[in-house]
């Protein structure tokens, strides 16, 4: 087992100007489950492949433990790409199916048996070791394939969108199984996905990338509560955060009829390049339905109500703001505001409701740089 360190590691594809991965600095702790997440083209898979040795590192270094592996062949890096290949051999016993790679590597027979038995114990396969794969259930066969990676006792497991092939229901089941197995094994794992929900539910920590640049790394809670910039704020969370561009005047953020008072620290943080604007974000679940009289109340015209039983979401648009209504939108990119409301008191389509951001659940970002302004 080992730590993994990206030390200002960059990958620039020939013929391109912008690095696919730009000076990535990331330290992954021993035994940690780290998820690389971001939209397509953000550099997450390239980062993983750099660690696997499949992509050249054009500058910087990559270390596994204390060992600089930047120029080491993939097979000598002591890593395992899990789920890449899991065909089972029908004529071989379950034990041989799990241990054959060790046999190829010349590991002594007794050692192979010992490691296979250990892995089988973790995977609940002990009583099947001498049977053929045919005698196993689907789930057991799958675990045999996992066992193949485990018996090699690699320092790091790498997984590149292993669930992308599954439908939504199975994805949920399988991700729980992978996460719990990883925790039992305690092997450092780097996992790539484009799905922020997968990232939040599986990772000890999450690293969000965009355009080859690391945006933020932290626990799921960190990413959710204190996103470092507008991009992370809009990317993490489902439904996505509402994000609006407000004009600052007389100590408050204004958009249409809405006036949200700002703290003195926030106003002090506004720079000339922000041109008198500020970006404010609030999650659908950070809103309370209030009356028009409330200070900072935001009027929303209800376009659609989605009732989910335990929750209800209002999809609407900023009312009475004219053209400015488009300045506030969901982080998912749609020109709408999303509000979680009490499922027992849902408004009707066409109603106007007033909502206020709960104290302390407001996120403010610089209008020019998108960086979080810490209050």
């Amino acid at each position, binding site marked *: 087992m080992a730590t993994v360190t990206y030390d200002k590691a960059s990958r620039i*594809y*020939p*013929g391109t100007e912008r690095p696919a991965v730009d000076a990535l600095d990331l330290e992954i702790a021993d035994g940690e489950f780290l998820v690389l997440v971001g939209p397509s083209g953000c550099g997450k898979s390239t980062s993983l492949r750099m660690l*696997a*040795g*499949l*992509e*050249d590192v054009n500058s910087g270094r990559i270390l596994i433990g204390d060992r600089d592996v930047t120029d080491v*062949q*993939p*097979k000598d890096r002591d890593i395992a790409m899990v*789920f*890449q*290949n*899991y*065909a*089972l*051999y*029908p*004529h*071989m*016993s379950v034990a*041989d199916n799990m241990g*054959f*790679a060790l*046999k*190829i590597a010349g590991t002594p027979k007794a050692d192979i048996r010992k490691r296979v038995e250990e892995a089988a114990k973790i995977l609940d396969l002990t009583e099947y070791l001498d049977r053929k*794969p*045919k005698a196993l259930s*689907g*789930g057991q*066969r*799958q675990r045999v394939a996992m066992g193949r990676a485990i018996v090699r006792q690699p320092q790091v497991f790498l997984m590149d969108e*292993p*669930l*992308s*092939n*599954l*439908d939504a229901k*199975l994805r949920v*089941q*399988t991700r729980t*199984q992978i996460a719990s197995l990883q925790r039992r094994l305690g092997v450092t794992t780097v996992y790539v996905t484009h799905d922020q929900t997968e990232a939040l539910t599986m990772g000890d920590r999450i690293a969000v990338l965009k355009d080859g640049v690391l945006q933020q790394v932290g626990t799921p809670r960190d990413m959710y509560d204190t996103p470092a910039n507008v991009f992370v704020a809009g990317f993490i969370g489902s439904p996505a955060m509402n994000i609006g561009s407000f004009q600052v005047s007389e100590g408050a953020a204004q958009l249409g009829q809405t006036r949200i008072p700002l703290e003195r620290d926030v106003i002090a943080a506004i720079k000339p390049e922000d041109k008198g604007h500020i970006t404010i974000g609030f999650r659908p679940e950070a809103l309370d339905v209030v009356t028009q009289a409330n200070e900072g109340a935001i009027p929303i015209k209800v376009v659609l109500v989605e009732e989910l039983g335990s929750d209800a979401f209002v999809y609407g648009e900023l009312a009475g703001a004219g053209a400015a209504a488009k300045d506030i939108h969901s982080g998912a990119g749609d020109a709408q505001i999303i509000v979680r409301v009490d499922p027992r008191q849902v408004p009707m389509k066409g109603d106007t409701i007033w909502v206020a951001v709960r104290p302390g659940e407001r996120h403010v970002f610089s209008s020019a740089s998108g960086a979080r302004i810490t209050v």
Partner: protein
Amino acid sequence: MPDSLQITAASPDPALLDLPWHVPLEDWPQDVLAALPRGISRHVVRFVKLSGRVIAVKEIGETVAYREYELLRALSRLDVPSVEPVGVINGRRSPDGERLEAVLITKHLQFSLPYRALFSTALQPHTTGRLIDALAVLLVRLHLTGFYWGDVSLSNTLFRRDAETFAAYLVDAETGDLHERLSDGQRAYDLEVARVNIIGELMDLEAGELLEEDVDTIAIGGRLVERYQELWDALTESESFDTGERWRVAARIEHLNELGFDVGELDITTDVDGTTVSIRPKVVDAGHHSRRLMRLTGLDVEENQARRLLNDLDAYRAHADRQGEDEEFAAHDWLTTVFEPAVRAVPRELRGKLEPAQMFHEMLDHRWFVSREQGRDVPMAEAVRSYVDTVLQHRPDEKAVLGVDTAVIPRISDL
């Protein structure tokens, strides 16, 4: 999510619509299947009859299906030996509205053989080695075009007979990726995955007593690495020599032709004082002999079959004393008076046993064999009759060998 069936295909066959897409592939009725379900695959795969042909249908996640479809199309355009994609069908639902997985459809490669089929029939002693050599050539060709396979194995490959040897075709591109150029790490990883998979597959045959006893499986895996490395070096290495040794340029090209490759572009640089020259092939294309035969006769055959046919064509020209005249004329006459009559002499019901070019190759072998036995030059027509009666009759049909007996391996979704 679309509610209706969506078919993405370059040239869709209307008969596709008649297949039972509302039924999970696993439960498809036998009357549409071309063979009983078999094959070692992590997905459900079925061979299906369609308009007098056979197609392979694989159930797979939607994004992966489209991705593999596009990759296979790109590989076909690049002229890499691979199965041809037919299309993707998406938006499948069962009668009670349950969503079914998308399918990727490929054409079945006629006269191709899965490696397990080769091991379950009477096996010639050197088959294993020849399969490995064919796979090494395929892997080098894929890597030259920038294709990273990700899961190289014998089961992801199909083999076609090619004279004494085999030609390998890529079947499964699911884990693959097309790049501008591959890094050494990508090539090395592919090669290591190939080595481990091949040894695993052979160990499995060994466990099933399908492999001759004294075969060293680990050495065979090693042979792939060696063959790959030799071929890769021969095709890509730069070579330096004295300006006076310019014949070495021609020799290098000839050597590559021998290996079955054409040189499309050669980098030639001289040092400052002009005493040494260095050359490095920049663009190489496989199929030197098959292209030449195609140009002369229009026959589209594998590389080593082409070598054999070209040799016979040369012998024909020498025999007819026509070496002085244009090659094209002699080639046309050889085609109409030697090749075609020989192939047509095979009774229709036996034509599904082998490809015409492979049959012709075996006929030439057979003629040599009977001529030696009888101590006279047996004419082709007579040799063909004897070949049909004593050899071809007893051969298995190889036009559509569809999988062999192995467990169907469940997808990760079967957890």
